């Protein structure tokens, strides 16, 4: 049996193929990984809907973006936090400046009242 490189498929990392590995079981593993990814995305979206009124758009969506990038198989959690925060912040600012609409502030409401 030839040496198989460790490879990444989504949030599950397959380091070493098991002894009972046959060509067919790979299908089951890939299907499982896909299902798990879909499950995490659906779960985090549901959680997002629930915590959005509490945390507000900025924090809730940063968390959502971060979890989803991890679910899709990103291996750079710190970088992902940065991208997620940047995206959420830009959307917040675009809605406010461009459309004159404010997204739910949640717990951030009035935190910086000394600036506003």
């Amino acid at each position, binding site marked *: 049996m030839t040496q198989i490189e460790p490879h990444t498929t989504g949030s599950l990392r397959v380091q070493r193929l098991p002894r009972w590995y046959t060509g067919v079981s790979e299908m089951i593993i890939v299907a499982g990984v896909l299902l798990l990814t879909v499950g995490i995305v659906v779960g985090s979206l549901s959680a997002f809907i629930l915590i959005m009124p509490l945390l507000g758009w900025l924090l809730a969506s940063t968390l959502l973006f971060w979890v989803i990038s991890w679910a899709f198989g990103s291996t750079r959690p710190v970088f992902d936090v940065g991208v997620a925060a940047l995206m959420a912040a830009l959307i917040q*600012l675009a809605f406010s400046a461009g459309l004159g609409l404010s997204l739910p502030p949640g717990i951030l409401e009035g935190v910086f009242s000394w600036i*506003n």
Partner: protein
Amino acid sequence: MNRRTLVTTAFALVASLAFVLAAINASGSGGAASPRTKITLVAPAAPGGGWDAFAREGQQAMRINGIAGGVQVVNVPGASGTIGLGQVVGMGDRHDLLLVTGGVMLGGIILNDSAVSLDDTVPIARLADDFNVLVVPGDSPFETLEDFVAALQNDAGGTAIAGGSLGGIDHLLAGMLAAESGIDPQTVNYIAYPGGGEVVTSLLSSTAAAGLSGYNEFRDQIDSGNLRALAISAHEPVEGIDVPTFREQGVEVSMSNWRGYVAPPGITDEVYDELVAMVTELRATEEWTDTLERNNWVDSFMVGDEFADFIRDESDRTEAIVRGLGL
């Protein structure tokens, strides 16, 4: 410091800065329940009329001066504004709505037997008064109000008067003019049109002998000589309008077409205070002063309880006129 670290640091800085700015922005957005964020002005008439102009001029002044984050005008035409009134009353506790209202609606509520009235709303402010004029075509034999009244007395049915919707200021004025001239108001041949534009058309095509509408609707035609203004409905002569009042010509008829804003019935005290503050700010803007001047509207600013009392009095007065005229 190598290139990679530099890029990473720059990215971290940009992301943090954006995040902090967004957090400050979120902190200042102060919840969703303020009419400052976004407000809808409901003009209960078709685009182009007096209420529509009133709403759009207000929208412009609010937008330029940042009185509200977003201002939009929605037209809900029909039945002297009572369709729009019904919708706004049905909105219950919406905090981001103002309904344009005015004298015309009071008559409309009575004549249409409307299920809702201005008592079902929260009065915010009266902003401006407009006056109506009695006009005849430029080639009409009626040179003065006296001539016209004489014709009306001789043949009320043959002297058709065109004007706005039934129960509106124009209709009430026609009835009051008849009553003052000693004619049964019910014999007046009043032809109702949806707006001033149609009244002008009916005058120029000689369908009606005289017309009643807001001064602005007729201004261009009066200036060009196509129409002749006989009298204006103001109590006192209006500066900038060269038309004598009914009272100056010995006919005790006066009625102002006031316009203002009311809010849905369920608003909280905070929202009420905010709306009053916003309308007060609107009235103080340069754009609004300019609007009043351009349209020859008279500033009749009035807020809160004073305005609520005013609506009640006007409502009673209109009801008395309508009943008195047997309309």
